[in-house]
């Protein structure tokens, strides 16, 4: 069966070979391309099958050609010169000289010789660390040393073992690859891991935005102020308290600054100020701006007395001039 070889086919093949030789010097490449052009013309003139049938894939053809011509194997020349330049720069720096001196040291040499022995251990460890990181990123923590996955320690254990096995397998196969290919793979893997990490942290932010009043709302997620519009405080007898200032364990103000209620109605709230005139958003309950005091829309249960003498909370009255710890108007991002 003869398929006529067309000019566009030759052009495509030529272009692919040229691309595969792109790292050669212009002179070497053009010399070779001249030969390739006449070769393809001769092969096409025979009219026995397509170029690929006769000569194989263009990049294989290019690899065979440059290898037979005694030119460097694809990519290696540029990479070597790049890394050689870097190594030279490092070696001539003071740090490089110190390192060179250190590597003369016998113990250092022994230690370096020992490093490859540690590789399998590292493969196992990184498998474990990968699952641990994943679990931490999704805020699942760990049961003892076993990372939780899907809120299950068993699943975490299984995944950890799978990751260790995969990591060791990867490590062994990795060693079989030429260094050039290793770097390419490492780059791809790093990109994927970073992508997953950023996706997961974005996801984590949403999760942590549940109304957790002990932490200020994360700057980006407004959901605390969305869902939480006011706080009502009562004493043990169920008496409403006013002018209550709330702080977390670090003395940071717990602010509520929502300006819309759950139904989307705009809230006009009074802004309170310290005696020194600093506006604060951690005084509760928040009062409507029209000045009319807002009674709590519900009544709390009364508390049974505790065993000991229960100290009743002492609270500064509304508008009181009690000393205020420096309020931090900026919400602190949650460290989860």
């Amino acid at each position, binding site marked *: 069966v003869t398929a006529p070889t067309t000019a566009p086919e030759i052009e495509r093949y030529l272009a692919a070979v040229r691309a595969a030789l792109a790292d050669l010097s212009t002179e070497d490449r053009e010399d070779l391309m001249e*030969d390739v052009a*006449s070769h393809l013309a001769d092969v096409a003139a025979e009219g026995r099958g397509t170029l690929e049938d006769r000569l194989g894939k263009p990049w294989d053809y290019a690899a*065979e050609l440059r290898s037979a011509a005694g030119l460097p194997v694809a990519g290696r020349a540029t990479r070597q010169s790049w890394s050689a330049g870097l190594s030279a720069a490092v070696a001539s720096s003071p740090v490089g000289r110190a390192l060179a001196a250190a590597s003369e040291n016998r113990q250092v040499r022994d230690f370096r010789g020992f490093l490859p022995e540690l590789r399998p251990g590292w493969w196992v460890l990184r498998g474990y660390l990968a699952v641990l990181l994943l679990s931490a990123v999704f805020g699942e923590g760990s049961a003892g040393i076993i990372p939780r996955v899907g809120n299950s320690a068993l699943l975490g254990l299984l995944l950890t073992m799978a990751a260790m096995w995969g990591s060791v397998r990867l490590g062994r196969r990795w060693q079989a690859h030429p260094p050039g290919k290793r770097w390419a793979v490492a780059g791809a893997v790093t990109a994927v891991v970073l992508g997953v990490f950023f996706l997961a942290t974005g996801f984590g932010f949403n999760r942590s935005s549940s109304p957790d009043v002990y932490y200020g709302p994360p700057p980006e997620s407004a959901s605390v102020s969305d869902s939480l519009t006011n706080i009502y405080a009562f004493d043990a007898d169920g008496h409403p308290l006013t002018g209550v200032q709330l702080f977390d364990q670090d003395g940071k103000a717990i602010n509520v600054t929502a300006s819309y209620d759950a139904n989307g109605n705009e809230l006009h709230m009074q802004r309170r100020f310290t005696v020194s005139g600093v506006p604060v958003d951690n005084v509760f309950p928040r009062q409507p701006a029209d000045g009319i005091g807002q009674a709590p829309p519900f009544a709390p249960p009364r508390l049974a007395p505790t065993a000991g003498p229960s100290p009743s909370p002492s609270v500064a009255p509304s508008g009181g001039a009690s000393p205020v710890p420096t309020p931090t108007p900026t919400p602190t991002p949650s460290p989860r």
Partner: protein
Amino acid sequence: VDTTQLLKGVLDLAVLAVLAEEDGYGYDVVRRLRAAGIEEVGDASVYGTLRRLFTAGNLSSYVVPSEEGPHRKYYGLNAAGRAALATQTKSWTGFAETMDSLLHLDSHFKEESAK
């Protein structure tokens, strides 16, 4: 034995030998090698070898206009090429003899094939 591997070592010699008979252009050399029974060699290997021998100064080249296609670049042996052919022929013959005696080809193989 993988013939392709063997060929790698002697392709230079084969190409030099072909060109010693008569000058030729790339595809002509490919065809003449095939006709001589060297089938496994890839076209690209032959073209690459020609390029390397030329760069090393073993070949001279000249362009011949062609009526049917592009101009053809012919290669021929120069003095250095002829010297290289002589040296390599010598080492090949020596090597082949060594292998022959190692394999007892002279006696053994003849007996075997006679049966």
